[in-house]
């Protein structure tokens, strides 16, 4: 499979599937966090400014905590998400799929200093592209992965039709293919739908386009349990 997924076995003897997040959503999440960090320091500077030198001190302390510790704090408190990660629906997890805690969160956030070298996450990007799980060096050392957050599965919408049972039992992958075709039926042109529907000949035999499509949509209804 070419999919960027990672399968994790749990003590209960099942496998969970994590969907890994690549460099682009992570860079976008980072830029949101960066803007927020600058904004926080800026607001503190504005508020503490009238205090003079003491205000500068408060702003410097804020800058330190916001830069080094706040991301780790968010990751331990917000199910592995910083505000930027939440905006893009990604989260940090341990390699075994459990939520991150302080040691791992702090390791990956302190080692950002190395990933940032030589400029703008050069090392981090190379490490991510070279590793199977899109890990930057901080993730390698901390034993963490960045994944897309599980979304609530929305009910599948596709044309209703009288269910047709497939001529033989379909594997999970094959069932998925039929369902996905039915889901996309409304966005495809009629010609393309019919062309695609003629391809799985073991299912549709030698039926022509429109009847093959109707038959596959009927099977999708059957697979989805509309009986």
């Amino acid at each position, binding site marked *: 499979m070419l999919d960027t997924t990672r399968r994790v076995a749990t003590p209960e003897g099942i496998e969970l599937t994590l969907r890994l997040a690549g460099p682009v959503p992570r860079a976008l999440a980072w830029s949101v966090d960066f803007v927020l960090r600058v904004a926080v320091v800026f607001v503190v500077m504005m508020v503490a400014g009238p205090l003079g030198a003491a205000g500068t001190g408060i702003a410097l302390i804020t800058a330190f905590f916001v830069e080094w510790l706040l991301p780790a704090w968010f990751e331990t408190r917000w199910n592995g998400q910083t505000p930027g990660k939440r905006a893009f629906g990604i989260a940090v997890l341990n390699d075994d799929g459990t939520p991150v805690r302080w040691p791992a969160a702090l390791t990956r956030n302190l080692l950002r*200093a190395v990933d940032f070298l030589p400029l703008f996450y050069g090392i981090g990007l190379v490490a991510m592209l070279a590793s199977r799980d899109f890990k930057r060096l901080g993730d390698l050392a901390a034993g963490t992965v960045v994944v897309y957050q599980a979304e609530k599965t929305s009910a599948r919408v596709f044309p209703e039709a009288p269910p047709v049972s497939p001529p033989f039992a379909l594997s999970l992958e094959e069932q998925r293919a039929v369902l996905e075709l039915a889901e996309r039926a409304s966005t495809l042109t009629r010609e393309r739908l019919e062309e695609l529907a003629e391809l799985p000949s073991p299912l549709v035999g030698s039926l022509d386009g429109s009847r093959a499509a109707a038959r596959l949509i009927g099977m999708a209804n059957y697979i989805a349990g509309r009986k």
Partner: protein
Amino acid sequence: MRQLHFEEAHAKEWDEFEKFLDDPKKSPFAAEEMPPRYRRICQSLALAADRQYSPELVDRLNQLALRGHHALYRNRRRESQRVLEFLLAGFPALVRAERRLVLAASLLFFGPLLGLIAVLQAYPEFVHYLLAPEQIANFHQMYDPANRRLGSREADSSLMMFGFYIWNNIRIGFQTFAGGLLAGVGSIWFLAANGVVIGAVAGYLTQVGYTQTFWSFVAGHSSLELVAIAIAGAAGLRLGMAVISPGNVSRRAALVAAARPAVRLMYGAAMMFLAAAFVEAFWSPLTEFGFQTKIIVGIAGWVLLLGYFLLAGRSSAAR
């Protein structure tokens, strides 16, 4: 069993479990029931996947199991008690366990530092190879015996310097640690470079006769700050060693294993930097206390710190 019957039989339980995950306070069942219910979800997922039920159902169960997994394996132990325990016993015991790296880092840092102080007494002009003229002028101004406050220019407030020391010194400590990931080179560089600069300043100011002002300023926080740099360097070298010589595991596994003690060393080092910044900002600049008092406090700091690392936590480490 047909999928429809399977779903009908379990729908109520799945919905209840989902309600628990959404908000444990409004859960329809007691929290103790969660683990067995989670195991039944796992069982249902395994059955649904094996019986080739519809992907929609398998996805939903995968998701319930994933969220249940997160809820079950989250650690909710109290942190505050562990912080105290770490400071009183865990940290000094860890420094002793890593003593070879701590000694190596100390040598890399204190070697150039003490060496330069000695060299500059005999060859004062050598300082011009190490520091720029503006830096030298700056240090002259900071430690001029005519100052009422030491180590900073007159108008700076203590709180501002506290902020500056946190922002600057802890960052240097973190960089010294992180640089270790580059096969140790970054840590070695930061240790030696900081040793050279501090040694050059100390040696030069002693030689030009600012002994009283300079040493009474640095004495108080010197123990905490210098040892914290050495420990941050040791933590970095721990990562570097895992990259250079991983032993009989993969480099990746060695790195993950090394990161755990290394980051614990950094917890301790960061707290030492924080304490050092506090002393440096609020005690060290005071001129109300005499030179002797400040030197005695400084020496007491070193004795206490060395005693702490040599003795603290021995009994609880054996437990």
